[in-house]
């Protein structure tokens, strides 16, 4: 999701999905491919949804489990092989990974029962993935790949509106998956900070903060009434990019692991480092960060910090910045419920707790930070739903 942007005036009024908004959703004429191919009430298998982000491609795959013998017989060989390949493996090529723990079992979609698989691989490997599709004679199948997000325009994909997919995906997953949404109880007390399920039955209005490579912030008033409030280019991509430059690490997981071992207060200058304690005149507690990386102005301190400390400081800086902007948006939009999604939060409890803390502390308990287990996959889920809906 792109960062530096404001809400689009055309988008703000997009309350009801009329003909104009569906036009908007159709990015290129390849949509016709599908309308030709889909004659029956539901699309032919395989069912895929894809979200091409700046860093990661997110793919959801619906594996039908209620295949009849007749279907089994009809199923062309290459389709069968795809199903087997995807479901029997958890890693694809060098970089593709299936998040097994997120798999949704016995799901009923469009009258079919099956499992929903969540797969991701780096965007830079998209050509490899497509080549694999070609090798397995993907193109001979009567199917359309519904995709959202970015990706090279040369790809023959049915492109969908990213934000709409995102919101649909969130609402859908939350409706089928119990305990999908959760929050942290006692976020300001590290000893008693525990995860608790949050029933998202009546979610509106909510601020939906999608932290991918960049950040988009949406105000959602109903399934079809939402606007993009703002965004920032300081997102997960920035964290990883800076971490790579500062520590020489090469993956998100490495960067996070380093961060978990580091101490940001060795890098950041805190209020108490300047004032000896709280800056009472303005109600700033001594532990608050006064200057991110502020200690790095000093040569001696530069020599004593570890790479882990730098990684941690980078994580804290980026997370806090997202927290600040989110909080201001929540105030401006007068919304108290904030849902954070996006792959920046994947295996990143550190950032989630930081965000929970920041929302709670600086709003004096007014704002609630909510998280979803399927963090980064909602756009892809939305794309899949679109495939099924439109048929």
């Amino acid at each position, binding site marked *: 999701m792109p960062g530096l942007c404001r809400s689009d005036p055309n988008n703000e009024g997009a309350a009801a999905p009329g003909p104009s908004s569906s036009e908007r959703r159709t990015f290129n004429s390849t949509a016709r491919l599908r309308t030709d191919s889909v004659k029956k009430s539901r699309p032919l298998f395989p069912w895929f949804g894809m979200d091409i982000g700046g860093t990661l491609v997110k793919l959801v795959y619906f594996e039908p489990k209620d295949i009849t013998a007749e279907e089994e017989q009809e199923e062309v060989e290459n389709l069968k092989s795809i199903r087997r390949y995807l479901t029997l493996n958890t890693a694809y090529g060098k970089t593709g990974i299936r998040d097994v723990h997120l798999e949704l079992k016995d799901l009923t979609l469009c009258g079919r029962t099956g499992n929903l698989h969540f797969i991701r691989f780096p965007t830079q490997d998209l050509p490899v993935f497509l080549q694999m599709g070609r090798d397995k004679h993907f193109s001979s199948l009567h199917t359309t790949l519904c995709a959202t997000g970015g990706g090279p325009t040369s790809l023959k994909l049915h492109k969908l509106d990213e934000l709409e997919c995102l919101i649909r995906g969130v609402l859908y997953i939350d409706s089928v998956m119990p305990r999908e949404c959760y929050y942290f109880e006692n976020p300001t007390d590290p000893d008693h900070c525990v995860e608790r399920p949050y029933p998202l039955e009546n979610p509106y209005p909510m601020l939906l903060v999608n932290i991918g490579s960049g950040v988009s912030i949406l105000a959602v008033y109903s399934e079809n009434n939402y606007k993009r409030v703002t965004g920032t280019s300081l997102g997960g991509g920035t964290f990883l990019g800076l971490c790579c430059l500062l520590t020489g690490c090469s993956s998100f997981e490495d960067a996070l692991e380093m961060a978990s071992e580091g101490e940001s207060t060795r890098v950041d200058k805190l209020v108490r480092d300047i004032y000896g304690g709280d800056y009472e005149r303005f109600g700033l507690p001594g532990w608050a*960060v006064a200057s991110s990386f502020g200690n790095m102005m000093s040569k001696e301190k530069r020599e004593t910090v570890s790479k882990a400390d730098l990684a941690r400081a980078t994580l804290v800086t980026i997370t806090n*910045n997202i927290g600040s902007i989110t909080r201001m948006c929540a105030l401006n939009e007068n919304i108290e419920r904030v849902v954070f999604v996006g792959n920046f939060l994947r295996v990143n409890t550190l950032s989630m707790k930081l965000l929970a803390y920041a929302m709670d502390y600086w709003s004096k308990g007014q704002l609630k930070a909510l998280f979803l287990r399927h963090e980064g996959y909602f756009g892809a889920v939305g794309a899949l739903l679109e495939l099924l809906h439109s048929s």
Partner: protein
Amino acid sequence: MAECVGVDSSTSAHTMDKSIILPPDEIFRNLENAKRFAIDIGGSLTKLAYYSTVQHKVAKVRSFDHTAKEAHSDKLYEISVQEEVTARLHFIKFENTYIETCLDFIKDHLVNTETKVIKATGGGAHKFKDLIEKKLGLKVDKEDEMTCLIKGCNFVLRNIPHEAFVYTKHADSEFRFQTTHPDIFPYLLVNIGSGVSIVKVESEDKFERIGGSSIANLPTPALMFSYFGQRFDELLQLASKGQHTSVDMLVKDIYGGSYGSLGLTGDLIASSFGKSATADKEFPKEDMAKSLLHMISNDIGQLACLYAKLHNLSRVYFGGFFIRGHPVTMHTITYSINYFTKGEVQALFLRHEGYLGAIGAFLKGAEEDNPNQYRWVENYAGSSGLMSVSPDMNPMQRARSGTFDMLEMDRLERQLVKLPLLQDPSSYIPDTVDLTEDALAREYWLFCFEDALDGVVQRAVASQPDLPEAPERAEKFRQKYRHKLQTLRHQPFAYGSLTVRSLLDTREHCLNEFNFPDPYSKIKQRENDLALKYYLKAVKALEKLEWEDRQLALVSGVLAGNVFDWGAKAVSDVLESDPEFGFEEAKRQLEERPWLVDCYDQWFERLKGPPHRCALFFVDNSGVDIILGVIPFVRELLSRGTEVVLASNSGPALNDVTNVLTLDSFSYSFLLSSRLDKVLATLVRERKTDLVIIEGMGRAIHTNYYAMLSCESLKMAVIKNSWLADRLGGKLFSVVFKYEVPNRLHMIHSTL
């Protein structure tokens, strides 16, 4: 762990540099008489403020009492040069590395001080406390940083004309300076130091820190330090050469183009540093620096917008040492503010952003001296101007004191106010041509002033025949003023909008600096004497005329008199070559009617009507101008029953009238606004002034030409400069006679 709050200071451990030699002529001036100190020590820069008394010479005039038969001289008055003591504020900004050298220097030169304390603010105040106390023997008295900052900001916004400016990268003039406005509140101040503080300021004493972020400035240099060990200024230089697109992930990198439905263009940054995540690749430093600068500036701009929106504020000032006049930074912040608020919020930068804390700390200490009841004006001779220390932006950088930046302000002993008769005081812009925006005009006037410099130097020496060291001082004046002109050629924006008036002011300040209070005193004296000899004859000749003819003759007289002006080169050439060039000849030189701007007929019609209650006459030159031109005109007004108030400059500008008349309208220039004496303003109100007469090229054309008054006005001038004449579509000695009646009055008169 929590949201960052950003407090704008940090200390750093620079190693002290004791090897530099300070150039005392240029920095730490008037230290001997320093009365009060304040210091603001930031993360890398120290700002020192002190207040000194300055002794300089002024020319005083003493009239002889001619009625008492005291006529041992045939001169009208005598001139004496006296010493006058005035107050001046000095601000010096230097890198923390020099702090010890500077403290030693101060200690060695501090002679007459009675002060026992030094007010200190900034994050470094704590760190350097012991050093300061040990070196200076003064007690360090710490002041709250934010309070100082706001106090300083209010002070510069009120006192320094053209303090705030809007930055537009691709405009004719990148800097658009704002005029000072009495209502400065409310505003948002975004102070960017090591962190960011966002402060909502509602009145002099009421302000609130509403937020901040720590993604600012120092994290980045800090971050870069840890990577390359670069210094901040070097980083900015690097950034100006870099391409951020190799490091940042743009919208088009993800979407292949723009993201139309969201209104995101392809060139927008989707993820800062998003491309540097792809391991192993090396990125040029320049590109990373640029990306970093973009990231920080965008982020600050975005936060500022969110706060401005939440608090309903439309003016956002940016201060702190992050910006320091760096074009890329200002451009990115401005762009980001425009982008996020769709132009509803204006990003304003400050010429003296770096001094806010020091000014505030000084004011805190000086509260018992009531600094607020005075008016302070920037002294152009002693101030180094915007961007004077930016390494690659100022080719005129002073060799030895390149990293020292200065601001000096003079205290005026009188309150200055706006002329109550201005139709719309808040929109009054005195200067007719802004040379910052008009490159052709700028070139011409800079050339003019440089060309006239030799003459001014000669006059200056001639004005002090008894002082043997005068030529040496005059030479120093020449160097200083020439240097100022050269700086302005490269950086027309260095002192705010460049105008003919500011060029004259700068020359005045430089002349005063070297104790030439009035280089034209001798010439004025001679001309006054010559004119007076002809006065009676001229008046008698006028009295003989019929009423109708006399009115035109009086106007011609004022105009002819106005030809006599040493400041205009064309005139001084004639006068120099032919001292007998007479008043009558001047009349013949005047353009025939109809003049270039000719409202005489309307004026003549008006004279047939009822007399004015009170006329305020801003006079121009001494000698022939006032004695043979203005006085007869005034006599006629008086005879109609109109009261007349004559207003002149209190300080000399060329051969302007000084002190000959009863009322002064302040100093060097010719403004109806802000720089007018309060006494005069009161008088104008009490006497119910209904006519304002402005005479001379400086007051009626270079300035005020477009000023709309709420009463009738006459603007009279002879154009004595062929370039300006060209511009206005006339020729040398063309006449401007502009008579204006405000709309409302006009209707009343026409119905009468």
